[in-house]
């Protein structure tokens, strides 16, 4: 049961993958529209990706907590 719980906790990565993929798609569109703003766009993209990835990391931490504490 511990393994099933940890496996379900790891499903949190789906959301992060989809979210960061969509964000990158819009960032690439924005760069294609206005190439001289690309450094600003890249900075915002990295920030948004790091914040979205935190949700996947919460899932990872929960998985580790489940394995080692239960």
């Amino acid at each position, binding site marked *: 049961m511990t393994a099933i719980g940890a496996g379900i906790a790891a499903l949190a990565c789906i959301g992060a993958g989809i979210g960061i993929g969509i964000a990158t798609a819009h960032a690439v569109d924005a760069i294609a529209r206005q190439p001289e703003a690309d450094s600003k766009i890249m900075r915002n993209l990295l920030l948004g990706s*790091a914040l979205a990835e*935190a949700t996947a990391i919460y899932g990872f931490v929960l998985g580790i907590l489940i394995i080692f504490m239960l």
Partner: protein
Amino acid sequence: MKDMAAELVARLNVDTAFTIPIFGGIQIAESVVISWVVMAVLVLLSLILTSGMKVWNPGKRQVLAETAVNWLDGFTKDMLGPDATEYSEYISTVLLFIGLSNIMGLFGMKPPTKDMNVTIALAVMSIVLIEAAGIRRKGGKGWLKSFTQPIAIVTPINILEIFIRPLSLCMRLFGNVLGSFVIMELIEMILPVALPLVFSMYFDIFDGFIQAYVFVFLTSLFIAEAAEPLMPSEPKKKKNRKQKNPSPAA
């Protein structure tokens, strides 16, 4: 596979490095010792870069130091906004400390931020600074009143945010550093010669700096938000307007 898992678990735990033999033995954890190493490196770097500074004819070392400090200063003041620029030195220090701690894996030592105690301490310092910035700007009563802004309904959410913000800051930093560390240990167990170099460019360096930047950016964003002046409240409507202002036609 079993002893690989056992070795991984052994490396994940934070060991006690040594024990100070007073008061019945205070145990000093490994992460504290490596934090001392990070502090020593930063202090030595500062001392070397700022010794023998001159106003005219500055040497190359001084120009380098001035460029770095100016860049950090402008960067953090930009993030803090116009109302809260007095916290820029603390934010720069935290940025340098977390940035250097996260890439300690490159030098063969465990990063101190892999220990949850270190990240909890950093997050608690951040939330204390955020609330203190709010109290300094608005006074005690104004700070209490700011919980009911922008609408009174969101007051429980604002109160919960005092606990949720440091929790998310702590978990984000801890989880990223722990994840990078685990992956690098697994790669080193498979092939310790050339493969770790390629992957450590992403996991250790890139991820470490990005997480330091995100931690510092979020802290300064919350400080800037806490240091905004209170929104002015609605003026009370007067009831006897018609009697006080006689119409000019009368």
